[in-house]
């Protein structure tokens, strides 16, 4: 399960794997589960790969993504958020400890067990990916130096 979630996180940061977009190819169990889980979903579209089905939809005018395994079980719900949607301690930590970085990406990944937030912070020199540990603190998930171009 952890691996699946991490894989989703990687995928969300842009390394998208191959999806089939044909509605007929989307797992029926996933579609049935989705219709029960998100009664008021609008603008639903599906993508399917060999490991999971992904529904893109809007709920209360906000775009989000739901991932289902081949058995139709909900793996995770993901949405991009703004910093003011973070729990206050996570927001305060970014403001206090990373004030010289800007936020280039921030998303919420929720499962039946827990909600985790991931954010990409950048400054001129480096890029950090932080992962929330509970709703009170961050851990560094990945840290990389930016390439320098010397003229």
């Amino acid at each position, binding site marked *: 399960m952890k691996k699946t979630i991490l894989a989703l996180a990687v995928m969300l940061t842009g390394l998208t794997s191959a999806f089939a977009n044909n509605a007929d190819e989307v797992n029926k169990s996933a579609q049935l589960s989705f219709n029960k*889980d998100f*009664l008021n979903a609008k603008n639903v579209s599906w993508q399917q790969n060999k490991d999971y089905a992904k529904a893109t939809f809007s709920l209360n005018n906000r775009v989000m993504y739901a991932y289902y395994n081949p058995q139709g079980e909900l793996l995770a719900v993901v949405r991009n958020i703004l910093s*003011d*949607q973070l729990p*206050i*301690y996570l927001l305060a930590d970014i403001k*206090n400890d990373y004030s010289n970085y800007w936020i280039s990406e921030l998303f919420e990944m929720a499962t*039946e067990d827990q909600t985790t937030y991931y954010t990409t912070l950048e400054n001129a020199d480096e890029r950090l990916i932080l992962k929330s540990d*509970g709703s009170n603190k961050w851990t560094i998930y990945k840290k990389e130096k930016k390439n320098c171009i010397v003229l």
Partner: protein
Amino acid sequence: MKKIILGLVILSSVVVRANDNTPVSEKVRQSFEKEFAKASDVNWNAKGKNVFQATFSYNNTQVEANFDAEGNLLSTARLITEHQLPVMIIKGLTKDYADYKIRRAEECNSNNTTYYVVTLYNEQETVSLKCFSNGDAQRVERIKNKI
């Protein structure tokens, strides 16, 4: 006469300073400023002997934070909008309370646990729920609307 005037001036400055005093120690104040560095419009209140409550504006929202006399942050609460609720709570509410509207939502944190108090209403009743970020919800109050 000069001595009396000087005495009155000194006395009045002491009174003004006394009115400016908030009931918090430097330790508590420093702890607050470390935790919420960019807070504004801060007001302090003593809640009993050992609990001090700061009410302030933070990132355009109104927040309450309680500290003990040692400066330890005990709890926080802030009013939030529906969109600031965790996605699993939104999922649960749209499914189980489809015909209700949200009147008020509050994010609370105490003992390192974050939970959300959501008040919803429809034509018949008003319901308050204690919700957790995984979507679990406990009903804490239910009031029938008066006709």
